[in-house]
C-alpha cells in the first residue's frame, strides 16, 4: 500500500447478466476487479500490459483488454467473461468447436481466445481462415503454434451453420 489510502469510487456494471455495484480503488484494473472482487477467475492475467490478450473480455459486445482499463471506466457497461459464454450448461459453439478440435493445450490463454472468437463470430459468422488469423493476432498462445486454435474456430463456424449440434469428436 501507499502512504495514503487509495481513493475509492462507486462503479456499477453488469457481468454475464448480473448487476454488480461496488466501491473500488481508482487504480484497480477491470481485470483485477473481475477476478478479485467479483470472484470470476476465468479471466486470466498474463502480461498485464496489453500484449498477450489473455484478459480479453467483451465490453458492450466488443473485445477489450480488461488489464488496460480502470474498473471505474467500465461504469454502466455490460461485460461478458468466459464464465458467461455457455448457457444453461450448453457450451458456446466456439467452446464446443475448440473442444472438438483439441484447440488448446495448457489453455491459460483460452479465455481471451474464446471471447475474441465469439465476438468475431457475432459480427462475421462466416470468416475466412485469413480473417480468423487476423482477428486472433492479438492473442498469444505459447503451446500450440495456433493452427489447432484456428481449426477450432473453423469447427465452431461449421457447428453454427449445422445448427449448433456437437461435431462429436470430429477432427478438423
Amino acid at each position, binding site marked *: 500500500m501507499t502512504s*495514503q489510502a487509495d481513493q475509492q469510487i462507486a462503479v456499477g456494471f453488469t457481468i454475464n447478466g448480473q448487476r454488480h455495484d461496488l466501491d473500488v480503488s481508482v487504480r484497480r*484494473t477491470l481485470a483485477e476487479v473481475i477476478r478479485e472482487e467479483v470472484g470470476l477467475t476465468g479471466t486470466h492475467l498474463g502480461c498485464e500490459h*496489453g500484449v498477450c490478450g489473455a484478459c480479453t473480455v467483451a465490453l458492450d459486445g466488443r473485445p477489450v483488454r480488461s488489464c488496460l482499463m480502470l474498473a471505474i471506466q467500465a461504469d454502466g457497461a455490460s461485460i461478458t467473461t468466459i464464465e458467461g459464454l455457455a448457457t444453461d450448461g450448453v457450451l458456446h459453439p466456439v467452446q464446443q468447436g475448440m473442444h472438438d478440435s483439441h484447440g488448446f493445450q495448457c489453455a491459460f490463454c483460452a479465455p481471451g481466445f474464446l471471447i475474441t472468437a465469439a465476438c468475431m463470430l457475432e459480427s462475421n459468422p462466416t470468416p475466412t481462415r485469413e480473417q480468423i488469423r487476423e482477428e486472433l493476432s492479438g492473442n498469444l498462445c505459447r503451446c500450440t503454434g495456433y493452427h489447432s486454435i484456428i481449426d477450432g474456430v473453423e469447427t465452431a463456424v461449421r457447428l453454427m451453420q449445422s445448427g449448433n449440434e456437437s461435431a462429436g469428436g470430429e477432427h478438423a
Partner: protein
Amino acid sequence: MKLPPFEYHRPSSIDEAVQLLADLDGEAKVLAGGQSLLPVMALRIGAPPHLIDIGNIAGLDAITANASGVIIGCLVRQAEAEEHTALAEHAPLVAKALPNIGHRAIRNRGTVCGSLAHADPAAELPAVCLALDATLVARSVRGERLIPAADFFVGFLDTALGDDELLTEVRFPAWGRRRGAGFAELSRRHGDYAIVGVAATVSLDDAGAVDHVALAFTGVAATPVRSEAAEQQLIGTAPTSQSFAAAARTAASAIDPPSDLHGSVSYRRHLAGVLAARALGEATRSIR
C-alpha cells in the same frame, strides 16, 4: 494492484478539464482510451500523480466528414473511425492506416487523438497527420491553439502540447479530386508496431502528371519523417513505377533509421525504399 497510485479526476466539461490541467501544473496525464497510458503505468515507465479522465465529457466523440475535410474529436475510438464510411471517403489515407493499429481489442478502446498525443515513433497516425498536413487543436485556460502537424511531433513520445493543454480534435483538410492514398508497413505480426511504415498520397493533374505528392515514414526516427526531396522529384512527372522507385531511393537515402533486434539500419533503409515505392503505387492506382 498493478498500477502505481494516482489521484483520479473526472471532469464533466472541457473547461473543467483544462482548469484541472492548469491547476495540477504538469503533474497530470489525460486518460481517454488508456491503451498507451495504462501500459506505461503498468510497466512503471511513468507514474503520473494525477489522472484526468475525459471519458465523461459530452461532445468529444464526433466524427465530421464531408467535402471540406474530416474532423475527429478526442474521444473517437480508432475502431469507430475505422467503421465510419464517410471518413473512408473523405480521408482515405486515415482509413487505410487505421486497421494497422494494434489489434481490434486495442482499437476498440484506443482513441485517434490519444495515439497522436502519445506520439510513439512507430505509430501509424502521426505519419498520416504529417502526410496530410493535418491540424491539431489544443485547448487550455489560455484559449484554443491550432498546431500544424509539421510542428506537433517534436521528439520521442514528445509533442508541442503544453502541460496545460488538451488535444481536443484533429482536422484533416479537404481531400481534393484525382488524389489517391497508399499505406504500407512491415511488422512482425499483424498489429505489432511497424518496423517501417509509409503513408503516401498522389494527386494527378488533368494531363495525368503528378501535381502533388506526400510521403511520410514511421518507425525510422524519433518522430515521423516527411520526405520533401522525394516529393519534389515527382512533381510534374508521369506516375510510373520507375519514377516511384527513383523517388523511393531518394527518400530512403535521406533517412537515418535506428537499429534494433528487429532490423539493422541498412535493412530498415532498404525496407523504407521498398515500402515507399509500394505505397506510391497503391496511391496512384486508387485514384478515381
